[in-house]
């Protein structure tokens, strides 16, 4: 009942928050719920390792978790927990300042667990159709999170988010149905073939190759839109910058990767049917384009959260490039990168949230500089996280990026590594120049000093501490899980 309880806990929390009366109770419920999911996630991780490459299944294979799913469950639960811890003071301050009504704050505490449930169902569902529906649940439950402040700009962002997302999902549904149709003949006769991913994979060599090609292209564009791959990324900076910071952290920290996960399931199926070349090359292409596009936008960006959003675009691009290169080292690096990025990016959005609440703007020019003096705690956290996200040692992103680049050199496409390095350097310069100006520069005279309670700073630092620990010491069991997951992606169980 492990998988079922992982799905039920956040769902129940969401339902309870509909009725929970005092505000404190909703906060506590969210934190407790996500902590429980994390514990269950760790249990699942052990269960998957115990099966050594096998999958944990429930409800006659309706729910299925292999190493890849277990890894994603861990990412979802960690980011959700960190977010719910940070959200406590964030929303209390918004409520105190009257920026947000109590009703809207309740919306956040109801919709965030629903959002998480959607993501968990994406990674635990075996049926491709149910997986699609879960992505839609995830998309729809986050629309009102993006529009939470009900400003004109946030409504605009929410509209773009939901329209582009729905368009993408229609395409993904086409892809899903083509994948199902491709199984009809090999399964034979009048019976309906199973729509389960695992049974499609078992049939893979016999699937109709034309339909699978079409299915993959539709799924790539469809789920690629949700993953924010360029050129379908246009909703991404808007939604990330207009959403309240806890939601931006969830969107950027995990939801993009969940869409990549959905795409990976199709990639594995296509590889098993058509061989390695086709789907890998397409993913590589979209990934490279996203990376190349992100660089200039980061360099010229005027808004802190939009810059962070473009940095997410670059990281998702890198993950896709690494998967597309399809060597053991790069795929392992991609999975590792997902984890480290999930621990880093939320912290940056948390810091940005503090800055926004303190200065009521995110515009670099209006902020001026000297945050180091006016908001020392936030500036320190922002600085450390920025160093981590630009891939400097001792933080893990350095290791994962190095793994990917080194892995890339050993493949046939060594030039890709050169391109990756070049874009990483551009982004590195962009992020550090912008943030150095913000943190170090001269402070404007009229700015008040921020007062942060220690508990809030601790909540912000928690993911960073975890990042540092896992950067210096990757537990052997986690390493084993990632290797198993990498084998699944490369189609070698």
């Amino acid at each position, binding site marked *: 009942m492990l998988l079922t309880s992982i799905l039920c806990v956040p769902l129940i929390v969401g339902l309870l928050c509909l009725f929970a009366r005092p505000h404190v109770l909703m906060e506590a419920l969210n934190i407790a719920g996500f902590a429980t999911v994390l514990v269950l996630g760790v249990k699942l991780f052990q269960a998957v390792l115990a099966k050594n490459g096998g999958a944990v299944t429930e409800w006659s294979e309706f729910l299925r978790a292999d190493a890849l799913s277990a890894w994603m469950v861990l990412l979802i639960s960690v980011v959700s927990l960190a977010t719910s811890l940070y959200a406590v003071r964030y929303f209390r301050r918004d409520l105190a300042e009257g920026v947000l009504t109590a009703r809207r704050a309740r919306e956040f505490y109801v919709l965030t667990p629903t959002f998480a449930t959607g993501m968990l169902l994406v990674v635990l569902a075996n*049926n491709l*159709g149910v997986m699609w*529906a879960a992505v*839609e649940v995830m998309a729809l439950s986050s*629309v009102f999170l993006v529009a939470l402040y009900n400003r004109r700009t946030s409504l605009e962002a929410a509209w773009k988010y*939901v329209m582009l997302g729905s368009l993408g999902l229609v395409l993904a*549904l086409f892809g899903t*149905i083509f994948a199902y149709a491709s199984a009809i003949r090999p399964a034979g006769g009048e019976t309906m073939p199973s729509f389960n991913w695992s049974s499609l994979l078992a049939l893979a060599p016999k699937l109709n190759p034309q*339909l699978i090609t079409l299915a993959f292209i539709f799924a790539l564009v469809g789920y690629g839109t949700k993953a924010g791959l360029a050129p379908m990324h246009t909703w991404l900076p808007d939604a990330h910058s207009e959403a309240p910071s806890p939601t931006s952290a969830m969107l950027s920290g995990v939801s993009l990767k969940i869409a990549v996960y959905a795409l990976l399931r199709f990639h594995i199926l296509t590889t098993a049917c058509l061989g390695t070349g086709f789907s890998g090359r397409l993913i590589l292409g979209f990934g490279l384009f996203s990376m190349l596009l992100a660089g200039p936008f980061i360099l010229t960006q005027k808004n802190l959260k*939009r810059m962070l959003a473009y940095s997410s675009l670059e990281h998702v691009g890198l993950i896709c490039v690494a998967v597309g290169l399809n060597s053991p080292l790069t795929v392992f690096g991609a999975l590792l990168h997902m984890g480290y990025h999930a621990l880093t990016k939320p912290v940056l959005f948390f810091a940005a949230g503090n800055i926004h609440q303190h200065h009521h703007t995110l515009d670099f020019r209006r902020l001026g500089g000297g945050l180091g003096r006016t908001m020392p705690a936030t500036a320190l956290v922002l600085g450390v996280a920025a160093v981590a996200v630009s891939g400097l040692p001792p933080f893990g992103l350095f290791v994962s990026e190095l793994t990917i680049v080194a892995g890339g050199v050993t493949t046939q496409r060594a030039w890709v590594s050169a391109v990756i390095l070049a874009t990483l350097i551009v982004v590195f310069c962009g992020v550090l120049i912008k943030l150095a100006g913000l943190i170090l520069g001269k402070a404007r005279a009229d700015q008040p000093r921020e007062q942060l309670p220690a508990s809030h700073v601790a909540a912000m630092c928690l993911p960073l501490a975890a990042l540092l620990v896992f950067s210096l010491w990757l537990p052997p069991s986690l390493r084993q899980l990632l290797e198993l997951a990498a084998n699944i992606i490369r189609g070698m169980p």
Partner: protein
Amino acid sequence: MPANASETGSRLITLLASLMLVLQLLVVVQRMLITNIRLFALQSLLLASIATVVAFAYGAWHVLVIAVLTLIGKVLFLPWLLERLVRRIKIEQELRPFVNMPASMLICGALTVLSYVVARPFTALERLGSNTLGVAITLLLTGFFLMINRRKALTQVLALLTTENGVILAAIALTTYGIPLIVELAIFFDVVVAVMVLGILVFRIRESFDSMDVSKLNELKW
């Protein structure tokens, strides 16, 4: 199964599918919102009848579920919901679209040809009707065109729904027996919830912008 029944069924399906295409083109040239909603309801009714024909002619009773769900959801409930929304926000007519009507018509004609070319290699895989897949892809592409071309938020929602009709049509054409029940139910509820979410959002946009003209949503750049 008598061969005759299935042949008649196949012809009926082709006929109904082409009527769906005609309705789609009418939506492209129609500017009154209420009429557009009714055209969409009619198109969904055709989809439901296709599902019914499949169910009877091929003994695939399973597909009847699609027919019933489409009838309840897309023919009755969603049009009712959208019409109520139109009355509440008191905007009944679409502004001038970005591309004028004759040019839109030409573009949609080109898109139809393109879809048939794309669907050609797959016609052999179709188990029902002929060129139903072509119609499905046309619905998808013209739906996209509608979304780009229209300014009103509600028309964009309608365009999205017609693309959804295209998906279901493709599912029926390619698989005969439809898709597993759980997936059908999931898709159905997702579509209904999606339209409700979009409706609330349209309402909120209308309140803060005094308009539901999406070309006014242009403050966020880069």
